[in-house]
């Protein structure tokens, strides 16, 4: 059945670290892995599931993607263009509320991880 979004198969790369990007993604269905690639090695950061989003930094800065996103099993993902997003924020700043909330959770999570890493090191 033709549902919303674009389908990716198991192991397919949706976003590649270091490549330029101008959109973010919302997971319609399935799970993706967030990976950091350092010296050719993969570091698994987290898994994301239905309704989660990724690639949001590209909406705010012209930098390259900071992580690779790989499909875990079959996934379906919806893209949100930068133009459409920024146009929406311009009209209704509260549109960014959920994004900011999630980004804030992620920063908190990273800070916790960093603290644990410093302690153990």
């Amino acid at each position, binding site marked *: *059945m*033709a*549902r*919303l*979004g*674009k389908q990716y198969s198991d192991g397919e790369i949706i976003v590649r670290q270091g490549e330029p990007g101008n959109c973010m993604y*919302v997971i*319609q*269905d399935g799970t993706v892995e967030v990976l950091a690639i350092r010296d050719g090695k993969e570091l698994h950061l987290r898994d994301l599931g*239905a*309704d989660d*989003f990724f690639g949001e930094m590209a909406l705010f800065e012209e930098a390259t993607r900071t992580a690779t996103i790989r499909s875990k099993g079959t996934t379906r993902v*919806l*893209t*949100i*263009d930068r133009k*459409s*997003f920024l146009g*929406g924020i311009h*009209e*209704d700043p*509260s*549109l960014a*509320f*959920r*994004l900011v909330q999630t980004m804030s959770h992620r920063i908190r999570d990273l800070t916790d991880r960093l603290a644990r890493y410093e302690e153990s090191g």
Partner: protein
Amino acid sequence: MGSAHGSFQQLAAEPESAKTLRDGSRIAVVGAGPSGSMFSYFLLNMAEATSLQLNVDLFEPRRFCHRGPAGCNHCGGVISESLVQRLATEGIVLPDEVVQRGIESYTLHMDIGDVEICTPLEERRIAAVYRGNGPRDSEPMESESFDGYLQRLAVDKGANLVQRLVTDVSREGDRMRLECADGFHDEYELVVLASGINSRLTADLEERAGGFRKPAPTKAFICEFKLGREVIRETLGPSMHVFLLDIPRLEFAALIPKGEYTTLALLGDDIDEELMQRFFTSPEVKNCFPGGKIPDHVCHCYPRMNISGARPPYADRMVMIGDCGTTRLFKDGIGAAYRAAKAAARAAVFHGVAAEDFEAHYWPMCRSVQVDNRFGKLLFAVAGLIQKARFARRGVLRMTITEQRHPGKPKRMSGVLWDLFSGSARYREVFMRTLHPAYIKDLVWNLVAGNVDRSHPPAVERRHGTH
């Protein structure tokens, strides 16, 4: 420094609204179509974020789990690309049970040929949904109605669903009084009219309140054909089929594939039998159906459509949203309902519920839609001229086909048509693109080239459907 000081002074000088929502304030929302349910959802969301405790009664006599007209709010059921993206950003990701089909292209049909216009991303970002639980006489569906889904979101956020028909809204001192058909009545600090274009409530208000003008409607037509999934896959595919035909008063016609069914929506200036007869007998329409034969429809209605907004769409402690306030001309009515619902909720939570609050914080959104609709009228007038002039149709078709055949080529005409059909971009933005010198140059060239050598009409260009 100076401007910061100025804005501070302005802030300090801004009088606090005489009518604000406080903990325990009661709000009545009349109608749980898209605008009413989304208003309730966003109002409660914003109240939660600001630690404000509100009580929302959402009045809706219709049950969206019913099939046929009893459960349906009569519309084409196309959720535009921009709305799908906005809702996803808000955390409202339309579930698979609600989406009957993801649309990935538009196929434009004209007497001189057809062309399929594909999404640049090869992704399905337009949703075809049912507002109720499917056509009359259909088998019960496992899928969920779009309106039912939004209503559930509002109820999960804390709205209290009241299954009653509201018959009267009046002022009782500094509160609003609401009466229902079964004799129930109650008082509220704010009444939100989200009762659509068909409700008597705005007509009653016009009769009673001088200076208020209800929205103006026109008659449209919708019907459903049962074709079956397999036939739809072979004939229509995941493409919405739109028609540019020389039929007076017809502004827009579209076949929208859904699960087992296909919805036909005709919009224009008072759609009547004569217009429909001409539409159904045109070969371009017949060719979309298997064997060139149009089957009997299983469900139909003549819904009304808002073509000019209410004025003013607010008063003290009352605001009108969606179709009973201001909406977009012909396109993306549900997207306009979303924008109105959010703007009204923001005004009520962050500013107040006096007429001045809505005038300052809700009316600008309505005005921008109304201004944009003027550009829409202009664009549909130009489309009307193209419908009448065969030489213009040749140019449009040639330009679109050339763009679709060459992936690297700028999609000037395709982009304009895509946004006009899908309603995803503002009409003003689409109009401005048609004034771009490169667009005009390409169009002139294609008008000449398409009409000079008529012995070679452009080939039919479609990925989906019968040729």
